[in-house]
């Protein structure tokens, strides 16, 4: 390679990467690093000059007299539970639709529809659906009489989290469905034909042919659900404004950081959660290492 060609190559690499890499550093890497720094200070969200280094105090506080801030983490369990149900349902529907029965496409379209809705619109649609005089109660009244009313969204009651978890399933089921459905496409149809000739029933075909193929994709979706259920923000924020029993870890953290002006505490919470997420991803990588579905295409 001539000097000129070498120079041109370097120039190209530099020019094509300078902006994306700068943005990566400024808007992503730097904020992550700064998060660690803030978590070691008593920064009040406004005035840097008055921020003092406090060592690990924010973390110690988090497990002692700020323990209440971690309570909302338990609500992730509702969302974790619902996302498991969601994954099972999505797999069921993906397998059913993969038989190319009449009207499959129509059903797929309907089940996926909530996923393309605007987040706020979807949240409000569900809020008004579950209101005291909303459509959900109207429908139930057709069966159980005109006095039947459920306060689905009473945020002073823990059970309202079930309503929110249901809203989350409503919105995201289609996503899991399409991902699993995509994985099913890679199974050659003649495997099923051969199994059928051998007299296998559908149950056996699912466990012997389908499940082994999509196991990895299901596992990855499961791990994403675990992380997702730890970070729940939108659904409770839009439906019950994250009030009372429906607050989540992310909502509490943002309240601490912005409304209560305790950036140090909020950053410590974020770092704590980040550690959990990193562990989950680490475990995922360890388990899936070398499997083809996650081969890094780069």
């Amino acid at each position, binding site marked *: 390679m001539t000097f000129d060609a070498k120079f041109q190559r370097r120039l190209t690499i530099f020019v094509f990467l300078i902006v994306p890499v700068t943005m990566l550093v400024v808007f992503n*890497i730097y904020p992550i690093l700064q998060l660690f720094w803030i978590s070691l200070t008593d920064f009040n969200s406004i005035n840097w000059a008055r921020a003092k280094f406090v060592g690990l105090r924010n973390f110690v506080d988090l497990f002692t007299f700020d323990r209440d801030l971690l309570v909302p983490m338990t609500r992730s369990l509702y969302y974790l539970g619902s996302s498991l149900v969601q994954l099972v349902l999505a797999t069921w529907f993906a397998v059913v639709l993969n038989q190319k029965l009449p009207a499959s496409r129509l059903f797929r379209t309907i089940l996926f*529809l909530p996923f393309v809705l*605007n987040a706020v619109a979807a949240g*409000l649609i569900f809020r*008004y659906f579950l209101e005291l005089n909303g459509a959900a109660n109207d429908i139930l009244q057709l069966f159980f009489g005109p006095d039947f009313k459920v306060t689905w969204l009473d945020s002073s009651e823990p059970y309202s989290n079930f309503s929110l978890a249901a809203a989350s399933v409503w919105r995201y089921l289609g996503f899991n469905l399409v991902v699993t459905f995509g994985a099913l496409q890679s199974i050659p149809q003649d495997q099923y034909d051969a199994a059928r000739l051998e007299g296998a029933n559908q149950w056996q075909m699912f466990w012997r042919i389908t499940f082994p193929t999509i196991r990895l994709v299901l596992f990855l979706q499961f791990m994403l659900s675990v992380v997702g259920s730890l970070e729940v923000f939108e659904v409770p924020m839009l439906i019950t404004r994250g009030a009372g029993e429906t607050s989540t870890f992310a909502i509490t953290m943002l309240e601490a950081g912005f409304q209560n002006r305790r950036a140090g505490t909020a950053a410590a919470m974020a770092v704590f959660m980040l550690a959990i997420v990193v562990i989950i991803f680490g475990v995922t990588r360890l388990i899936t290492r070398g499997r083809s579905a996650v081969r890094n295409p780069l």
Partner: protein
Amino acid sequence: MSRRRRRLTPGKILALGFQYLTLIVASLLVLMPLWSLIISSFKPAREYLDTDRITPPRNWFNLSNYIEAIWPEQANGITIGSAFYNTGFILVFSLLFLILLGSSAAFVIDRFRFRGRGLILGAWAVVVAVPGILTPVSTFQVLKLLGLANSKWALIVLYCGVDIVSILIFVQFLKSISTEIDDSARIEGANYFQIFFRLILPMLTPAIATVVILRTVGIYNDFVTPYLYVPQQQEATVSMMLYNMAGFNSGTSQAVLLAAIVLVILPTVIGFFILQRYIYAGITNGSVKG
């Protein structure tokens, strides 16, 4: 297909019936809230209060809520028109930069092996693993420092900054374009810029289409980013407009708000009906692998 059709036994009919039953029940559950939304959006205020939320409106052509949503009598907050303008502005610039930056970065990453490449890829991987909801405390400081907080440009830089899924889609597509094309162009004296802009970029059109569709859905529907970084009313996106309209002190009647919701979801729903194949393909290719 028809040759494969197996004979139907009672057991199979039962199984098939059960499968359809689950599909129908699930579809009804999905559609019920949407049905309630649509019928209610056509009911004038009085009728909306007097009737339940599942019976159709007396007059399907009553557009008073829609008219009030688009041209409110008293303007409180931002009009739906300005919100659509803000969202459109953000979409156009985010997509433009994302395509340009994403495809050129993907080109260099796919075609060249250079020092620092592994570092950049590693950094991208780390960033993807860090949930965006955890960093606002510090991201907000950066935006404030750059004078971007509360401006549409904050959203634009955040949307086009790092989107690993888009870069992945570009890289996957680039792999299918033979490097022989680059080589022969080199021999004819073209430099890398010419190769990229004249040869590669036009061939990336299908990948660009996928990225545009997926990111349009993502950006248009996003609530978290504008909520965190651009709370100012005048810069409100469609998401923030709805959020403010539904607020305690907005004074918008609920029926009008429902009409506004319909107007906001209409573009993506129509787009989805037309482009669903591409949306499914994009999700299947980009999601879990990323």
